[in-house]
């Protein structure tokens, strides 16, 4: 008689590190994903579709959108609670977590942190409720890891601003009501709140993605977009402001990746216990158990790292290079777990009937966006050596 199986994250009882309130937040998000995402997401992925307009009000009703921000209809939750929510969202699909990350940590955070009162009042309550969708335009076709050399420009015309350029790989762009656009000024970089229906703004949906298919991604064209002086984010000075938004989002990603990996490992353990080869469940072979054990160990470590960084975030002591440690490790390990799970699942590992290949493919994007692994290695390396290896 086999002993009862233990879920990978229960192995070292990580729940003990969480407050009752944090567990309650996690449980609600898990329930919503069970109800609204898990039954449908394989189909969405196949069809390269995400029902953003249906999900956003549900997420908004919970308080998921901009949940770690305060005021303006935001929930004011802790960094750890936000992280746990990201974990459950990404256990559903990285695209669903991306929707929430971009809305809350990039678009809303930029307006909340750097916006004027009028901008906040105009956008944040609707974005928190999920009635308005935001996106974040930093990356350009020719400027990814090196945003400082972006080509999008903002020039003065009287009191107005005129924006010209293009932004690439922008999550939520095809469905967004508003974009936070970063542009080169005469002196450095600045941020602008751009309604997507402003004349001169165009969006092309990026097709043929083999990863993050359940997430709308677009290229934004800016052709002489005239904006009033009030469109500029008054507090956003230079590249540092844009990067601080990324630091926010990276925290959620470090948590989210754990969710994707957990889903893969849960699926794979169940599969391995019921799939018979050579007359017994493949989970009973030592090679399989070694793989499962190593993956479970990495999952615990990723969780402990995320909790540690989350608590630092709540204490206000979290530094950007620490966030890089979390993003680098957790996404890299999650991807390794997803790939290893695929090997145990055999041919079924590549089937859309199981979530493993979908998560593995998604995590290839997650590895790259919000700072590639290499960029995070450089951030950590610079902190270790005091030497800048970026250029």
């Amino acid at each position: 008689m086999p002993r009862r199986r233990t879920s990978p994250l229960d192995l070292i009882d990580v729940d003990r590190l969480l407050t009752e309130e944090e567990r309650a937040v996690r449980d609600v998000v898990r329930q919503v994903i069970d109800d609204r995402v898990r039954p449908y997401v394989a189909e969405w992925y196949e069809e390269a579709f995400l029902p953003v307009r249906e999900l956003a009000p549900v997420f908004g009703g919970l308080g998921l959108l901009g949940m770690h921000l305060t005021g303006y209809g935001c929930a004011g939750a802790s960094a750890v609670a936000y992280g746990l929510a990201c974990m459950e969202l990404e256990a559903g699909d990285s695209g669903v977590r991306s929707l929430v990350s971009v809305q809350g940590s990039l678009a809303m955070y930029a307006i909340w942190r750097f916006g004027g009162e009028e901008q906040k009042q105009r956008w944040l309550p609707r974005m928190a409720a999920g009635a308005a969708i935001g996106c974040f335009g930093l990356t350009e076709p020719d400027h990814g890891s090196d945003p400082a050399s972006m080509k999008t420009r903002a020039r003065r015309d009287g009191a107005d601003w005129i924006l010209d350029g293009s932004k690439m790989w922008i999550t939520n762009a095809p469905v967004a009501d508003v974009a936070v656009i970063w542009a080169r000024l005469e002196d450095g970089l600045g941020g602008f709140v751009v309604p997507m229906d402003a004349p001169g703004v165009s969006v092309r949906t990026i097709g043929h993605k083999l990863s993050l298919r359940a997430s709308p991604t677009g290229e934004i064209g800016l052709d002489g977009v005239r904006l009033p002086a009030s469109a500029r984010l008054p507090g956003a000075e230079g590249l540092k402001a844009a990067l601080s938004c990324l630091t926010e989002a990276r925290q959620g990603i470090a948590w989210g990746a754990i969710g994707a990996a957990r889903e893969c490992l849960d699926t794979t353990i169940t599969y391995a216990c019921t799939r018979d080869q050579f007359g017994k469940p493949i989970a009973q072979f030592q090679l399989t158990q070694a793989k499962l054990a190593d993956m479970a160990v990495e999952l615990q470590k990723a969780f402990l790292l995320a909790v540690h960084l989350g608590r630092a975030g709540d204490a206000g002591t979290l530094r950007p290079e620490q966030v890089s440690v979390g993003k680098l490790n957790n996404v890299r390990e999650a991807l390794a777990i997803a790939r290893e799970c695929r090997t145990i699942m055999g041919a079924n590992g590549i089937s859309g009937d199981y979530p493993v290949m979908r998560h593995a493919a998604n995590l290839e994007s997650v590895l790259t966006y919000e700072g590639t692994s290499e960029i995070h290695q450089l951030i950590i390396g610079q902190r270790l050596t005091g030497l800048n290896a970026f250029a």
Partner: protein
Amino acid sequence: MNIVVLVKQVPDSGAERNLRSDDSTVDRGSASNVINEMDEYAIEEALRIREAHGGEVTVLSMGPAGAAESIRKALSMGPDGAVHVVDDALHGSCAVATSKVLAAALRTLSPDLVLCGAESTDGRVQVVPHMLAERLGVAALTGARKLTVDGGTLTVERQTEEGYEVVTAPAPAVVSVWDTINEPRYPSFKGIMAAKKKPLRTLALADLGIPADEVGLAGATSAVVEHSQRPPRSGGQKITDGGDGGVRLVEFLAAEKFV
């Protein structure tokens, strides 16, 4: 309207559940404990009535100290406060004793409306709402799939196997609900954070003037003498169709009273 919702913490019906080996009561210690699902519909109904007519919603629960977690979860959906009847002597209480305790607690709250789930997933006795109404001397509107509040008049559509009955009574009354009545909301994060600040009052048996020997295992009107594990599922009966397969299937179904 002053509404009290009865909430019971039960072992998760989706997980493995057991009885204790020492006294044959439900093993709550090793189980994953949750709010009785039907009670969530009662909470939702109470919140909707409060939203439409104003008033206050109080959660009332009887259970061990660990039930406080489910009470907080209930509060995170939106009720204003909670009363937790907790006393070691309550362990093993039968439905009759439970109704005695809850009725005493309800008298201290003097509600206009008592809402509860039509049954709990652990006991599944379905009699507590009726017993409460009897003890309180108010109407029992049970098994509701719809509830309408019009001033001091309550009208329910009472779900039956054939359809529904329309039953009306003046408030105060006890209304038990099925999961057809509404779609419970998810607790919001603001609700979760607000829940820990909401008043949660505990009452012991002494506060209610109930002697300990009238409740719990000592005062139970029925006793579980012994229990055993359900036998493992057997192979079942295979019918090979040799021309009479249909007849034999019907005979089987009729013998088992399925048709």
